[in-house]
């Protein structure tokens, strides 16, 4: 098999499972170590550079890093990466002095950003300090986009949004609040050098079944209702509430309803409980607040009497799987179910809408009404116009909006410097030995089984009494230290040097996870079978090195390596060493050009 090129940034990046899985590639283990060391401000700044909204994300991130975490593979539950991010935000000192300053000299280029959500704000944060004039437009009066209008305050307090959107706007960004853009044509006519479309996916799907029109007064579209709650336009809901839908919006709807007078709130989903789109932790939070979830029920009709909603009738279905394993919901053949209620919240999906973009502005749209854009550069068919966040590829989440924002900023910076936007910058990478002495390493390498620590919650009664009371209280310093200790330091890499190896087998014998094998070379599929422990997780690479005296190869399965460093500690010649791999994605600025 071809020997591994460890100089290629992707190789070790992939080993840092969390960083690889994070859309913004936040250097997770580095900030976790800083938290363990009590250096909260430093931890915050690493996050701020990568993901712009550490305090917001530390409470709300979809956390794709956690299912990827190595602890899942060697123990069971991931490190609480997301909630540790919040710790950095909660306990940091005043970091304003560490933020970039507004550009002293402008570079003469003007960028319009439509929408003040995380996507646009990330672009502005990256470009404003470089001298770009950034003008952010939003129909709302306050910045934040759906982070502000959709995510309930009991999950994300306004103060956190104010603080972190403030850091961006304070970089000399012009925020035209309360000014909706009604025409792309008109905007382009204002002579901006580039336009970023970060208007999100603002339309909630409706449910067109009998009774919808007749009972309309008590049937609400979930995201519109949440926005009204957020703006304090809605302060009550009926006693009995049914939430239709199984995604995160449904979870926010039901939990909000519980706080606005809903005593008997239930969620009803078409699918099975397991296949629901909501994150497991959101389902847990709903369950904790006494909200039952009824599954395999398809809404058939809104029942009403005298122009008033009385309930919803559901057809019972069951899941059937075809030969290809695809699921189909078919009638279960059981009698329909009827639930009585006073109000219904419809949370069955979200759509894009671009009514303000004229179709003759050079921006092509596909058959589904989505803009035609380059997946990497985010440039539309009008080279001045870039899409980011939910507007680009449909509703996703905050961290993806941030990742898009960074990429769009790079594209704009290159474009306005007459460079090929398709030529993407390489990340900045360092690899440094962590050996401090014969038995001293610069990181805590004692690895122990240790179950995930739970984040303390506000008492249920108090939480339900006040819709603005944050439910999660966050880790205290002691819990944070314990949880940070669960991190396996996957960025401290095992680096092998064949010329130094005397093939004494010490590393093979000591490795607790049977990662290392010295054997005859072969094709990857064959080699994977011949290792000390078969390497069946194909998502994880083999590290292969040749050049050994016996003509064999060293093959290390990265899958369940604990980064404990025992191999390096036991190696008599230093052929193994533990090196810290630090990768920062290139951002807009001279480095990307």
């Amino acid at each position, binding site marked *: 098999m071809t020997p591994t090129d460890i100089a290629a940034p992707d190789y070790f990046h992939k080993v840092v499972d969390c960083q690889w899985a994070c859309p913004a590639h936040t250097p997770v283990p580095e900030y976790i170590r800083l938290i363990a060391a009590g250096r909260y401000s430093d931890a915050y700044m690493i996050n701020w550079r990568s993901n712009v909204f550490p305090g917001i994300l530390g409470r709300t991130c979809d956390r794709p890093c956690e299912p990827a975490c190595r602890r899942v*593979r*060697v*123990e069971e539950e991931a490190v609480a990466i997301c909630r540790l991010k919040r710790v950095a935000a909660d306990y940091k000192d005043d970091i304003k002095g560490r933020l970039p300053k507004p550009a002293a000299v402008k570079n003469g280029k003007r960028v319009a950003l439509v929408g003040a959500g995380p996507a646009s704000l990330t672009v502005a944060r990256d470009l404003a300090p470089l001298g770009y004039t950034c003008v952010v437009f939003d129909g709302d009066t306050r910045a934040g986009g759906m982070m502000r209008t959709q995510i309930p305050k009991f999950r994300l307090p306004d103060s956190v949004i104010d603080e972190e959107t403030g850091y961006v706007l304070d970089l000399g960004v012009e925020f035209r609040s309360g000014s909706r853009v009604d025409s792309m044509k008109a905007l382009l006519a204002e002579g901006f050098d580039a336009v970023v479309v970060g208007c999100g996916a603002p339309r909630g799907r409706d449910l067109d079944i009998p009774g919808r029109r007749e009972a309309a007064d008590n049937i609400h579209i979930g995201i519109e209702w949440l926005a009204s709650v957020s703006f304090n336009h809605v302060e009550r809901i009926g006693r009995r509430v049914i939430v239709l839908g199984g995604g995160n919006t449904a979870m926010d709807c039901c939990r909000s309803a519980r706080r606005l007078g809903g005593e008997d709130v239930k969620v009803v989903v078409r699918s099975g409980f397991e296949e629901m789109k909501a994150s497991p932790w959101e389902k847990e939070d709903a369950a904790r607040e006494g909200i039952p979830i009824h599954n395999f029920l398809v809404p058939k009709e809104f029942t009403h009497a005298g122009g008033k909603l009385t309930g919803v009738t559901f057809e019972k279905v069951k899941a059937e799987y075809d030969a290809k394993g695809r699921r189909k919901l078919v009638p279960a053949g059981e009698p329909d179910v009827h639930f009585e209620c006073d109000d219904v919240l419809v949370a069955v999906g979200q759509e894009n809408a671009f009514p303000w973009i004229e179709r003759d502005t050079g921006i092509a749209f596909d058959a589904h009404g989505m803009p035609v854009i380059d997946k990497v550069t985010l440039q539309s068919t009008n080279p001045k116009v870039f899409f980011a966040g939910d507007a680009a590829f449909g509703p996703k989440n905050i961290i993806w909006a941030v990742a898009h924002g960074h990429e769009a900023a790079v594209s704009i910076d290159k474009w306005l410097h007459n460079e090929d936007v398709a030529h993407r910058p390489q990340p900045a990478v360092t690899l440094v030995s962590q050996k401090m002495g014969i*038995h001293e390493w610069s990181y805590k*390498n*004692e*690895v*122990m*089984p240790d179950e995930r620590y739970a984040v303390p919650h506000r008492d249920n009664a108090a939480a339900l009494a006040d819709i603005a009371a944050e439910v999660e209280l966050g880790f205290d310093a002691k819990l944070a230290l314990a949880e940070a200790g669960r991190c396996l330091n996957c960025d401290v890499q095992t680096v092998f040097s064949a010329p130094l190896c*005397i*093939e*004494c*087998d*010490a590393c*093979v*014998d*000591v490795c*607790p*996870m*049977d*990662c290392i094998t010295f054997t005859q070379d072969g094709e990857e599929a064959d080699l994977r079978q011949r290792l000390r*422990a*078969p390497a*069946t997780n194909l998502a994880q690479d083999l590290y292969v090195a040749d050049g050994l*005296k*016996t003509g064999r190869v060293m093959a290390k399965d990265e899958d*369940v390596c*604990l980064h*404990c*460093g*025992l191999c390096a*500690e*036991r*190696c*008599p*010649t230093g052929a193994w060493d533990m090196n810290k791999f630090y990768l920062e994605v290139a951002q807009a600025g001279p480095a990307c050009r």
Partner: protein
Amino acid sequence: MTYLAKPKFHHPSLPKNAIGFTRRDYEASTSTLCAGCGHDSISAAIIEACFELAIEPHRVAKISGIGCSSKTPDYFLGASHGFNSVHGRMPSVLTGANLANRDLIYLGVSGDGDSASIGLGQFAHSMRRGVNMTYIVENNGVYGLTKGQFSATADRGSKSKKGVVNTDNAIDLVAMALQLGASFVARSFSGDKGQLVPIIKAAIEHGGAALIDVISPCIAFNNHPGSTKSLDYVRAHNEAVNRLDVLLGREPITVDYAPGEVVSVTQHDGSVLRLRKLNDDYDPRDRLAAMDFLQQQAAEGQIVTGLLFIDPDAEDLHANLNTVRAPLNQLGDAALCPGSAALDKINASLR
């Protein structure tokens, strides 16, 4: 040496043996030997062999002398019995223990200094008496623990780390064991577990005196170019006569062998040893030919490894002495101390 304890985590696919133990259950405290020491590899091989044989750890007694090698029983089979005895005295302590309780599996762990220098007499007598044991010499050609003086197995003409030439002739413990009547004699190399593990398994299953001389490079004092016990030297001069596979009980024979004649040897306990010949002329059942071949190869500077001799029908010391079957700790006072009438009877028979 390492200060880190081995984490409790293990690979998700780590297999269990017939009695529900994983390989990790046969480990013990963290080794304090030098990083890269061949002895640690031998400990790993013993762990692997005991795991594969599904031995209950409490059925094993590990007995050793003094030396880095003799320290190793602390680093494997943590749940077994052990006696770290006096320099060169492992064989007599083991013989005594074996006579008192023949139901245990005896692992004698020693070094070349322990066995070929101070303990040479003890070594010889345990071999000629046919004590049922697995006697492992972790042979590095030096006294590792006392900082690398030549031992009695160092080859004449080989050089110390400082460049001093050894002028004494070497003792070959394999040759001695063959001459002294050991019924299982093997040589192997710490750097080749594929060869070593089955040999240890076969020796444990063997019902007589089994010697395994394992060349085990001392990384600190004897792994330099002038040494004949270095990793490089042994790899370059290793003349393996056969490859071994051990089958227990009624296990089906499924192993695929590369070309070479296969000889099956059934031991007393029913275990089947399948030997694939690497050298067609070598027959491990012929003691005299083995001695001859060994001398010839040694003269040519080659190190012969593999299962060199086996007498599958060997009898041990207990059979020779016609001792009582039960371990002494299971006999009652009356049997252990039959009284003066019995003594008078014995004395009378000797008059």
